[in-house]
């Protein structure tokens, strides 16, 4: 049996007074891709922000690799090897691509010029190599997504959390990103993938949870969930949007 890299129990998160995540429980196993599916507004991003401590949860327990990290500040999770590729990419627009990638090494080294892992990231995303000196803000959406993932990979994460990496990208770029994610899975990375694009995500994932208005509505092995009516609905919804 693979051990639990991340375990979330009864997580409740609110925006101000309005609770939008109502006691969500799930886990991500080591070496697997776990997927959190849901339509727009289901509470996926809020769940992730709550477990990372970017937003203080109302209640709930979060453990990472057996360590209780409930109510830990975000920087402490980073130091435990949790890397976050946030919704909307959020690269540092005014920093060069190279400096963005270096920012991913902060938990690994105090030296700035060492850039451990840079070759590996550029091997995963060779598209970034000619852009190293450019400001990240001038990259295309697809390149920014690669950069956001690359920045997370620079920390050699034990758990990689991606929030809708397909958002706002053309189908061609989406398959490029997913090709890279498949490579990461094959390398043995532990991944928690948040998606609206249910079909693509389920092709990649081992296990999946369906989030509906702040509750886990369904869960199971990815292969079985593909046939679920709920998943079909999410898939149709995401099709209408794009």
């Amino acid at each position, binding site marked *: 049996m693979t051990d639990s890299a991340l375990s979330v129990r009864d997580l409740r998160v609110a925006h101000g007074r309005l609770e939008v995540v109502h006691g969500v429980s799930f886990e991500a196993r080591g070496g697997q891709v776990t997927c959190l599916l849901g339509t727009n507004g289901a509470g996926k991003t809020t769940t992730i922000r709550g477990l*990372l401590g*970017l937003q203080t949860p109302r209640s709930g327990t979060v453990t990472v690799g057996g360590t209780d990290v409930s109510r830990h*500040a*975000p*920087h402490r*999770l*980073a*130091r435990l090897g949790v890397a*976050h590729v*946030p919704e*909307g*990419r*959020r*690269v*540092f*627009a*005014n*920093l060069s691509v190279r*400096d963005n990638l*270096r*920012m*991913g090494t*902060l*938990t690994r080294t*105090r*030296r*700035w010029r060492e850039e451990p892992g840079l070759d590996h990231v550029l091997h995963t995303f060779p598209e970034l190599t000619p852009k190293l000196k450019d400001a990240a*803000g*001038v*990259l*295309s*959406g697809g390149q*920014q997504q690669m950069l956001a993932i690359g*920045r997370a990979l620079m*920390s050699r994460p034990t758990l990689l959390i991606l929030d809708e990496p397909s958002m706002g990208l053309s189908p061609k770029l989406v398959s490029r990103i997913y090709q890279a994610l498949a490579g990461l899975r094959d390398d043995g990375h532990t991944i928690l993938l948040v998606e609206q694009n249910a079909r693509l995500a389920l092709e990649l994932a081992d296990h999946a949870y369906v989030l509906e208005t702040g509750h886990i509505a369904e869960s199971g092995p990815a292969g079985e969930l593909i046939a679920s009516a709920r998943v079909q609905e999410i898939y149709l919804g995401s099709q209408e949007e794009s």
Partner: protein
Amino acid sequence: MNLLLQVVFAGLSVGAVYALVAVGFGVVANGTGAVNFAQGEYVMVGGVVAGVVHEVWHPPLPVSVLCAVAAGVVAGLVTELAVSRFSGARSAEIITIATIGLAVALKAAVLLLTDRKTYGLPHFLGERPLRVGGAVADTQTLWNLAVVFVVAVGLSLFFRRTRQGTILRAAADDPEVVTSLGVPFHSVARWVFVIAAVLGALGGAGLAPLSVMSYESGTLLGLKGFAAAMLGGLGNLYGAVIGGLVIGLVEAAVAGYGSAAYGDAVAFVILLIILFTRPTGLFSQRKVVRV
């Protein structure tokens, strides 16, 4: 005597100090989003500490200046403790308000310790003024301009080339992502407040030979530095330097050709003009449109 040159020298001397204060405002605004109302008090602390050390122990001048810098480091650390640790503040608004409280506290502490006394320093490069083109240039002008130049070049290298400088630039883009990458907010806050306070204290030491410093010198200098920062675009390093020098020059021109009584009003008129013509300019530097 050449009045124009005289005005230029006088303007650059104090303008250099406003520039240091303005750079401090920008560094803090970039790192935390806040307007640091304690910025002027750092100048006061630097000037008073250098003056006290000089008066009590008569050490060589560089020692007095170093004491001012050390006081700046302490003031910066105290600011970080006050605004980010104790109040647990995260939002720019709360930090801004916390700095108002800190400014009052710093002023009160110096008032209690010095009992309203004023302090000065001798000119760093000798008391004998330089004669240039029929005007008298204070040697302190040269020193202050040199400090601003070194600070601008040094900070720009620090921000572009070093790990810590890049972290601070990244925090100006997206502070939350910086915390997700393993750097706690208080570390960013500590760096920006220490940098800002050291700049202010250096300015205070450089100003002490030109005008005496007391517990109440900081407020006006802070407001003038803020006007300079706004003029140059808050958060823009070279803009802040230029803004400071321009305000110093205009102030000296108004005092020289008009009346000295109106000199102090210059910064406020400029500040009002910027606020009315670019009302959204206040924090517009911080939000970067993403493609």
